[in-house]
């Protein structure tokens, strides 16, 4: 199966800039749910395989521990750790991802952790070039100043042909990152940038109503891009 890499990036402390990570977290929850369903089906059918165990040590389990670890910060008592649940999470983005996951149709059953990887990132950094070089399709998700609030746009991304001297820092553009992968590893996947217009980049967690409403749209776009890749 072809490999998809989703990179949702932005700063969750700057309002709508956190939409990339929010979508990535929502995708991770869908994958976990799909994984759990597969495991349940596997158990019903009396097999050990069932597509993997969500409680195992694979990528999906990492994502699970990331999410649960995030929730267990609020106190230093064992009771508070054991009682954490999505309802107790202090991060409003968790609510976004949880509700998105529960209401959206699950169409990720076909994907394994090898064929679909999803990362929530603060920014694009150079070492991602190695992950990109292993993928057949990369989907970047970012907030944008160019679209109207909540408006989703999609464009194909190609490697930067002549980066300027200032293109490299601790954070890169999708174009430069693709060029990096191409030059270093001799391979460059198809890539698309899904951007959503932000209403606010002010300090604070949580998405604006317009951008929050765009999260399911972005999830559908990701699914559509994956489906197109495999059709």
């Amino acid at each position: 199966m072809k490999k998809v890499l989703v990179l949702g990036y932005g700063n969750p402390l700057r309002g709508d800039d956190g939409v990339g990570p929010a979508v990535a977290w929502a995708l991770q929850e869908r994958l976990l749910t799909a994984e759990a369903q597969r495991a349940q089906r596997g158990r019903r059918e009396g097999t050990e395989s069932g597509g993997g165990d969500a409680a195992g040590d694979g990528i999906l389990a990492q994502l699970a521990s990331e999410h649960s670890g995030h929730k267990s910060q609020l106190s230093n008592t064992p009771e508070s750790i054991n009682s954490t649940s999505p309802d107790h999470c202090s991060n409003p983005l968790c609510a976004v991802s949880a509700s998105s996951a529960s209401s959206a149709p699950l169409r990720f059953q076909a994907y394994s952790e090898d064929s679909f990887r999803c990362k929530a990132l603060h920014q694009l950094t150079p070492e991602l070039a190695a992950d990109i070089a292993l993928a057949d399709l990369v989907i970047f998700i970012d907030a944008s100043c160019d679209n109207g609030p909540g408006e989703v746009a999609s464009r194909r991304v190609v490697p930067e042909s002549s980066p300027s001297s200032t293109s490299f820092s601790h954070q890169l553009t999708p174009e430069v990152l693709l060029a990096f992968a191409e030059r270093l590893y001799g391979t460059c996947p198809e890539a698309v940038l899904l951007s959503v217009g932000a209403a606010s980049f002010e300090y604070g967690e949580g998405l604006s109503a317009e951008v929050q409403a765009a999260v399911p749209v972005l999830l559908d776009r990701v699914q559509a891009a994956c489906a197109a890749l495999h059709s």
Partner: protein
Amino acid sequence: MARQTITIDPITRIEGHAKINLYLGENGHVEDAQFAVTQFRGFEKLCEGRPFSEMPSLMARICGICPVSHLIASAKACDALLGVRIPENAANLRRVLNLAQIIQSHALSFFHLSSPDFQFGMDYDPAQRNLFGLLSANPQLARDGVRLRQWGQQIIEWFAGKRIHPSWVVPGGVNEPLTEERRDQVLASIPEVMAIAVRTLDWFKGLMDGFPEEVRTFGNFPSLFMGLVNAEGGLEHYDGRLRITDASGRVIEDGFDPMQYSDYIGEAVEKFSYLKSPYYKKLGYPDGIYRVGPLARLNIADQCGTPKAAQEWAEFKALDRGAVLSSFYYHYARLIEIVHGIEVIERILTSPDILSKHVRAFAGPNNREGVGVSEAPRGTLMHHYRIDEQGLITWANLIIATGHNNLAMNKAVLQVAKHFVDGTHLQEGMLNRVEAVIRAFDPCLSCSTHADGSMALHVRLLDPAGEVVSEIKR
């Protein structure tokens, strides 16, 4: 000719946003220089009123580049509030995490931000003298940089759950023990990353002789050095005692209690920058200038404690009779620390108790005040909190690694600018050296903003009426 000003804004290939002002005298020579941080963050104020248990995760948000460092210093300050001695295994796991952070950060600094200057030279065409040019000229070096950084990030992700803003480190220890599978995965990759670290160090040592002027003028001056050392006086990054040495290598303060840091360290404020200027109180401001970070850590330590790094450290120490003074050697020290970090990670992960399930101490707050000190990639990091009887933060003070180096960076910029910059005939290579000396310190200015990645260098020479006399853009 009246006094003129050259402004470099923003500085490229550093973490964050800053500018450099160069003040020219009548003959066009540089008279003064300022390294100014233009961002205000305010984390010390915004955490007031929050429960202390939130502090590690909150403080980790200060920076997307070195969240682990703030996480660890913050957790140590919270350990002090709890009044607990965390399990030894938890301390070792935190130590691994901190070293992984240091390795990946050093890799970014050396390979991605500074190595183009070494590969091509300071005066080379800036259109080529960047990471993209490096990909063509030395792809192995570029791939090695990616791999080392990926390795450090992978350990953080495996241990702490995620690379940016991990939440595994908590007051009292860590919230999950290490699994056997993860330990074995890290150990299996050590020969590969050690080979990268050693060949990069050899590459850099082979070209250092080509930069004699930079060695001589890049922040090469007597100063104090500060950092943590372990119980044996050896190189330390997670715990231990604070030590200050002078330029001759003499220890002038040893083992002072982190809680008493304010008896030794003062913090001055300059009007032109949001970055505070800490100084050693006994020498006053600004004579109490000191440096922290890789160069300082190797200078203050009595030994390195791991075989490969010890050999490299001995060579490094032979560069000078006392302390190694040139800030150009920050790069060298950074590479030695990568070797040391890999060795320590291997040693810890092969220790018999590393999979122990006892990784956290539980308690309510027992102290109203706590200080946590650790070594971040760029130097000593201090978190100091006070809480009320409900455990809510009433006051916080952070002294970040880059802050400790503020006076030294200003002095280094002035030294380089005086030596290289001719205000009557500006050339890009001159200004690149001014930036490069800042990059040697690898300042991290907490870039939480999500910029568009198009930071540019724009230098203007203005006359007193504001007219542009000369201009360089890239």
